[in-house]
């Protein structure tokens, strides 16, 4: 399997969770040296890490990453597209920004979502595998601060619903997870603005932000597993109850 954007945050945690399930985890990252901690997590959890250079905005890199997994291990059972723009945690000044900023978001979250699907399709068809997109609650409710991030994450949900119908006859399942989890940006905020993090946590009925490995990982593994063989076209909101009306 391949996880994109696996060097940190949710991608790292989800990779470790798949490792715990015994998977061969392709750790897709732009800079291979940034994948070593994730690789250690996957190995410690019992999986087999494979570090892959995979900038999803470069078609040749994502194609090569998938090809390497198939050549070396004979199959591809799942792709988890988690990578986001490096600007995804920045506020967007919608009224004054330009299409260049939109392109930063769209190239990673929209175009690469399509391209990875096309590249993985023949392999997932053989294994009756699974394509999982890491969306966001922002892609459902729309964020005032992040209108571009919201839109591209919503795009993934529309993509999931339609592609689940298109690939259903091939028995390939297509789903998404909308997680609320600790990110590297929030880790920094914990140090710099602990009160702000406390306020955010106060909005979550379960009283804390999700842990990428132990809270977001298992539902992701489930959606790619045979246990979820009758689940497709869905978005699973994993937010500790923060979002209940989506």
């Amino acid at each position: 399997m391949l996880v994109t954007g696996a060097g940190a945050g949710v991608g790292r945690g989800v990779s470790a969770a798949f490792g715990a399930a015994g998977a061969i985890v392709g750790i897709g990252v732009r800079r291979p040296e940034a994948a070593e901690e994730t690789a250690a997590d996957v190995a410690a959890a019992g999986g087999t890490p494979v570090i892959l250079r995979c900038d999803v905005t470069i078609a040749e890199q994502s194609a090569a990453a998938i090809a390497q997994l198939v050549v070396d291990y004979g199959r591809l059972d799942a792709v988890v597209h988690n990578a986001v723009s490096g600007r995804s945690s920045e506020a967007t000044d919608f009224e004054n920004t330009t299409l260049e900023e939109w392109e930063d978001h769209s190239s990673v979250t929209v175009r690469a979502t399509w391209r990875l699907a096309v590249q993985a399709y023949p392999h997932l068809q053989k294994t009756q595998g699974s394509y999982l997109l890491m969306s966001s609650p922002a892609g459902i409710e729309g964020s005032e601060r992040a209108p571009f991030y919201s839109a591209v994450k919503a795009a993934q949900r529309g993509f999931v619903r339609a592609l689940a119908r298109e690939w259903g006859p091939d028995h390939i399942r297509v789903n998404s997870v909308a997680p609320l989890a600790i990110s590297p940006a929030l880790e920094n905020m914990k140090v710099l603005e602990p009160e702000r993090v406390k306020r955010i946590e106060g909005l979550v009925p379960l009283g804390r932000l999700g842990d990428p490995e132990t809270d977001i990982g298992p539902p992701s593994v489930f959606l790619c597993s045979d246990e979820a063989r009758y689940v497709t076209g869905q978005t699973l909101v994993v937010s500790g109850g923060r979002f209940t009306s989506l």
Partner: protein
Amino acid sequence: MATAPTTLVIATKSGIGASLAKRLRDRGDSVLHTDPSLDLADASAVADSLRSLVGSGTVDRVVLAAIDPSAFRAAPINSLTEAEWDQAAEYSMRAAFVALQQAYEVLADGGRVILILPTVATTGVADLVPLCTAVEAIRVMAKAVARRWGARSITVNTIEVELAAFMLGDEDATDVVMPVVPVLGQSALPPGSAIDDVLGLVDMLATPAAGAITGALLVADRGTVMQP
């Protein structure tokens, strides 16, 4: 004497937006309609066009119904080139961003923004992945700007209609190639005029009583796709 409200319609040359502009104009409303050949993803061209239409004034309502026609061509995603994907999916998202951004400049405080979209993304449709992707992105972009523009009492809402109604509006279907969309439900209400249905909602959203409705999705498909 109060000035009659002005509606700016940003729409492609055919379909529900164009039909709505004509119906509003026919009944005597003040309507400004962007040139159907305008490249909506060209920010400076859209800015020039809107300023040319609106002059130094403002508009009270903006209706946006602009999905690129290439999105209506049914095809499996793995048959598309990257350029085809871009045109069918991403172009309409860029156009929505540019249109909303530039419309903000000419909207009066308390103005109303109404997006019209097809219902396809609610259910998902095989072979229309680019369209479903674009529609869901635009719908949530509208919710995000609804949150941003509330401070100026501007409301932003979305009306969704069935795909055929979106593509055709009041027009005859004879020269339009319609994608084959599986029937995912039967309408609860008897058949009727989609353009009348939409016009009613546009008028309702313009009333003072609707000033508290923003970020909403109103589905005018006669009860075919009912939200969970």
